[in-house]
């Protein structure tokens, strides 16, 4: 079919747009001449060129109306607000608010500087809410006379202080010990209790002897 010649010549539309018949290669000329005359080729080429020139000059004159752009942007705003209805519309507008990129970076830098400045402050002095009084208990360690002596090999053995092998050290007999003069461990603790001021119990009108040992641990700060 005559109308199907363009299928036989690949890229014919590009040839018509770019080159006159005289500028074609011999191979291209030979191929085109199978389907059309040089005049036809030039006729088609002229139509395309003039049409393109006319369209280009038209496009310079025919422009979009600027008022349409404004109307469309208003329509956009309406569309956006209507899609975010109810109580979330105000919140969405706040979240959708755009700020330049340098502002968040600047804010982060300021916060970092403030953090380091505050972090390097001297720590507050230690404050004690309560003062615990130290309980001192007197303790007398009973000393044995035998531990002080160092037995001399040249000295004559003291018969009184004979040390028999396997029998251990023999205590020097001394005056009969009185339990009162050398208090026991429990007595030391009890003496400490007596030194502690039991203000609360006195204020309550009660004596220390009326309460148990646990109550006697109550201590007031000096």
């Amino acid at each position, binding site marked *: 079919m005559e109308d199907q010649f363009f299928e036989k010549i690949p890229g014919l539309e590009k040839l018509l747009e770019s080159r006159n018949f005289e500028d074609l290669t011999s191979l291209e000329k030979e191929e085109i001449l199978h389907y059309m005359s040089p005049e036809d080729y030039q006729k088609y080429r002229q139509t395309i060129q003039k049409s393109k020139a006319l369209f280009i000059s038209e496009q310079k004159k025919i*422009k979009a109306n600027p008022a349409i752009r404004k109307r469309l942007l208003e329509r956009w705003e309406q569309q956006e607000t209507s899609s975010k209805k109810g109580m979330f519309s105000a919140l969405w507008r706040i979240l959708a608010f755009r700020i330049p990129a340098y502002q968040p970076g600047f804010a982060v830098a300021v916060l970092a500087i403030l953090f380091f400045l505050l972090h390097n402050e001297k720590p507050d002095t230690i404050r004690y809410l309560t003062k615990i009084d130290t309980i001192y208990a007197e303790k007398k360690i009973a000393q044995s006379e035998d531990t002080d002596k160092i037995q001399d090999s040249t000295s004559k053995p003291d018969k009184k202080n004979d040390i028999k092998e396997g029998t251990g050290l023999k205590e020097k007999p001394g005056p009969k010990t009185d339990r009162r003069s050398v208090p026991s461990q429990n007595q030391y603790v009890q003496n400490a209790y007596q030194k502690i001021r039991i203000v609360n119990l006195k204020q309550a009108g009660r004596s220390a002897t009326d309460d148990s040992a646990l109550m006697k641990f109550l201590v007031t700060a000096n």
Partner: protein
Amino acid sequence: MSFWHKNLRNKPDVELMLLLRKGRKEAFSILYERYADKLVSFFYRMLNKDNEKAQDFMHDLFVKIIENPASFDTGKRFDTWIFHIAYNMCKNEYRKMTVRDEYRDRQIYKLPYSEESVKNKIDQQKFSEELNESLGSLDEKHRTVFILRYQQDLSLKEIAGILDCPEGTVKSRLFKAIKVLSEKLIVFDPKVN
């Protein structure tokens, strides 16, 4: 203009559409700048050189985009999609009116004064009138292919995507249009004159 606005100008159309779906007003603004004039000139040629109607159609097309941005398939080209919508709008308009008859009756839009000689100006004006009349006599499919190829400078593959037909069909229609127009515009051939 903020830092973000400057970056968007270099984005491709598909990315701008994705941003538009997320509610980015700047993306819509940039797409409008890129395609508004092209669409107006397309509608101008397709709708009997009616400038006012061309502006209305362009406005309506962008309203469709605002109302339903999800209708765009991100796997396809944006320019193919937008001209497909424009073509369908023109087809619907053709059904409503007899455009071919109005093509002959309507007053031709006169180009403003240029620096060319008077003779060239008259030739160009006459050619424009004849071309309009000849395009009007074409079938809408042939006219659309011719305008998309030589006014919008789209490839045959892109035109095939817009019209949703094979590339061979587009080629056939294009050469048919060239042939018919050449026969009707033969008076402007310098060799014939």
